Structure formats: C-alpha cells, structure tokens
C-alpha cells in the first residue's frame, strides 16, 4: 500500500494567504503579453488609451505592491487534492477559509462579501467559494482566483435545446457579450462551459478562465475552431475597451466541454474582466 503524505493545515493556510495576496497585485505575464499585443490591433484612439492605461496600471500595482483593482474579488479556490494526502492539524475546509481571511487582512484587500439579503458585510471576505477535486498522487494543487463582481454579474447559463447545436451555442455566447456591453470592464476573457449539468457547465466556464491566456483548447479541434470564430465575431461588435468603442472587446475565448444528458445542451458563459487574476501552487 502506498504511504500517505502528511500536509499540515498551517501549510495550506499560508499557501492560500500568499496566493491571494500575490494574485491581487501581480497580473500574469500571459495576460500582459496579450494586452500588449492588443494595443497594436486597436483602431480606436480612446481604445488604445484605455489599453495603455491597463498595462501601466499593472506595472504600478507590481512596483508599489498594491491591488490592481479595488474589487479584490470573491475568493474562488480550486483544489486538486491528491488521494494519498493526509491533512493534519485541523479541518481542511476551515484552513482554506482561514487562508483567505488572512490574505484579505494582511494584504489590505477589500472585503467584498456580504449577506445576500441584509447586505451586511461578513467583514473578512469569507466564505470563499471552494471547488475540490480528488486526484491521484500525494500533493495538493491550489489555485487562487479573486473574481470581481462586475464581470461575474454579466455571466449566465442557458439550458439550450440539443437542436440549437453549434450555431445556437455561438449565438448565445455572442449575445451575452453584446448584452453585457461596457459593464464587465472589457476587454474581457470569455470563459465557456458546454455540457454537464447546470452547475457543472458553470464550473467548466470558470475553469476555462484559468487556462493561460492565448492558449487554444488542445483536446478538441471543434472547440479551438469555435473559440477562434467567436472571438472574431465578438470583436466586430464595436464595444471596444471599456465600451468606449473599438476592436478589442475580448482578448480570448476559452471553451471547455463534457458530455451531457441526451435531453440537454447546457451552456455557461463566465465573463472575466481584463484584470484576469489567478495564481497556482503545488504543495
């Protein structure tokens, strides 16, 4: 029998603390590189101005160690838990929330979580949204994704009829982007989940946002083609950076897919603003 590997809650807390603080300050090189390229393809002067400010902001945030955006997000955590890991020194989920709590306090990040009805702030940005998947091995992969409310509010899910097919999927995604207009802080990244169930399609759409920016879907050529086509069409809508008009409405379309019920065709669109933040660690 394979020996289990012990990982302490303390290590989990510290890893999550660091990841959320870092994610809020340091925009990934992949995002910066796509943004840099996008300035060249933008026709609108105001659009270029916006894209240049976005790049400048990323530099300032890193230099001064301050958050890129005042919306430091709802803390979304993806966990790949190796089945040969034994978590010691406390409760695993408590450790995840504690890591978030510490990050938002120590990192001077805004606490943006509240009671849905009274709207009273919980005061420490918890609870986090935690997705756990059990995988092979004796490690834990943790992905910290602070998700802003503006782009999340423009996201949606539809249960299409199977006869809608590829064209129906395309239409739904493009209409979602058009309807969102300037609200989700374009240029956006369009995360799409096709298939599964109502909740699984939404999780797929969010996971799609974690793929390095500029990388196509590698598992299915139908999807990589669809990503390309949708990006081209979305960037003809004219919305442009911040909705001030222009070519660059979106930086990329990332689609993930899984089988679904014979009666269903779930499609989820999770929009991500240009401050596409996520950091990973393996412990």
């Amino acid at each position, binding site marked *: 029998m394979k020996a289990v590997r012990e990982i302490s809650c303390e290590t989990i807390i510290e890893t999550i603390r660091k990841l959320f603080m870092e994610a809020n300050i340091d925009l990934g090189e992949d995002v910066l590189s796509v943004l840099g390229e996008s300035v060249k393809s933008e026709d609108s002067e105001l659009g270029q101005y*916006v894209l240049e400010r*976005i790049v400048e902001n990323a530099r300032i945030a890193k230099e001064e160690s*301050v958050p890129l955006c*005042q919306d430091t997000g709802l803390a979304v955590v993806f966990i790949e838990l190796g089945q040969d890991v034994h978590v010691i020194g406390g409760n695993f989920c408590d450790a995840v929330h504690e890591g978030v709590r510490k990050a938002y306090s120590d990192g001077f990040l805004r606490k943006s979580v509240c009671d849905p009805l009274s709207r009273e702030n919980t005061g420490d940005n918890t609870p986090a949204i935690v997705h756990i998947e059990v995988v092979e091995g004796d490690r834990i992969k943790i992905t910290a994704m602070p998700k802003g409310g503006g782009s999340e509010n423009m996201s949606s899910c539809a249960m299409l009829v199977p006869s809608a097919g590829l064209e129906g999927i395309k239409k739904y995604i493009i209409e979602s982007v058009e309807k969102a*207009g300037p609200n989700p802080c374009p240029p956006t990244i369009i995360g799409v989940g096709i298939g599964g169930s109502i909740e699984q399609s939404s999780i797929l759409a969010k996971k799609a946002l974690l793929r390095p920016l500029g990388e196509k879907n590698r598992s299915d050529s139908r999807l990589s083609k669809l990503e390309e086509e949708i990006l081209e069409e979305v960037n003809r809508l*004219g*919305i442009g950076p911040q909705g001030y008009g222009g070519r660059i409405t979106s930086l990329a379309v990332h689609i993930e897919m899984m089988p679904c019920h014979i009666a269903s065709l779930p499609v989820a669109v999770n929009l991500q603003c240009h401050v596409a933040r996520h950091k990973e660690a393996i412990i």
Partner: protein
Amino acid sequence: MKNIIRINTPLTDKVCDELNAGDMVLLSGEVLTGRDVAHRKLFEAILRGDKLPINLEGETIFYAAPTPPRPGRFIGSVGPTTSYRMDKYSPKLMEMGLKGMIGKGKRSPEVIDAIKRFKVVYFGAIGGVAALTARYVKKSVVAAYDDLGPEAMLRLEVLDFPLVVLNDTKGRDLYEDAAKKYMINLSE
C-alpha cells in the same frame, strides 16, 4: 486624441451643459464616494423626509469603494464599480441636487432622462486600473455611513482625474454612439 477639458467641482449647470458625450476631461476638486448600500440608505432617508448626513447640492458621486490603505498611505486602490445598480436611486439623488456621477457601464432610460432634466453629467472612469487611479486622489476623509466599512461614503479630493463623458445633458450616450461607429456589420 480630442482636446482635454479641465473642470472643477462643484459642477454647475453651465459646465454640465458645455460637456458632450465623448469629451475627455480632467476633473479636480472634491467628490464623494458611494455605492450600493450608501445609495439605498440615502434614498430611503429622502423618502422618509429625514435629514441627510450629507448635502447633495452640487455634489459629484464616484461609485467606488477603495481597498484599505497600506500603512503610511491615506488611500488604497480605487476605481469605479458598475453604475446600473445605482439606477433605482440616482434620479432621486439628482432631484436633491446631485450634479455629477462617476462610474462605468450603461444607465437606464430613467437615469438618462433625469440627467437631461436636472442638467447632470455621467462620467466614465476606467475600470480595473485602481492602482493608477489612486494617484489622482490627494486626500480622503470619511463623509458618512462609517459603519458600512468598505462601503462607507468618503470625501475625496482629486486632481486631474481623467474621465470620459458618457451621458450628457443633451441626452447623448457615448456607449451607443461608439458601438455604432465601430460595429462591423456581419453581412458585409
């Protein structure tokens, strides 16, 4: 780039009337911050006929809630939140004298109508560039609703804060005009 217009708060009817959707401005002076809960509270207080914690006459509200400042700083990262969530409350606030709104995103027909009626301007600040935007803030004090924590209303002093006029007193809308201008007809 178009000419950049320098304006100061408090905004007047004359200044508002002279601005056009699409204009780039550099705004200086005092602005208030306020977002969801502060708006609801102001709105409810107006309906009840209560005295407001701040006088809205001539004020400009920036839909923002900054991050907590790091030690040695007076402001954290700050930037606009999406404005439509304030749409329910904004016409009432304009009725009470509000002259400017700073945010991002589309407004409702009711808000656009009130903007015309009360000679108000709705400005756009770039979303997601909050480390940069903090540099235009020179001073920050709590103005009202301190108990709301991150959503408390602050009085900020800004200097040369770059903004774009989104909706003007003539009823024009930059978002509508810009998308039309840059849209590529798919049948072409």
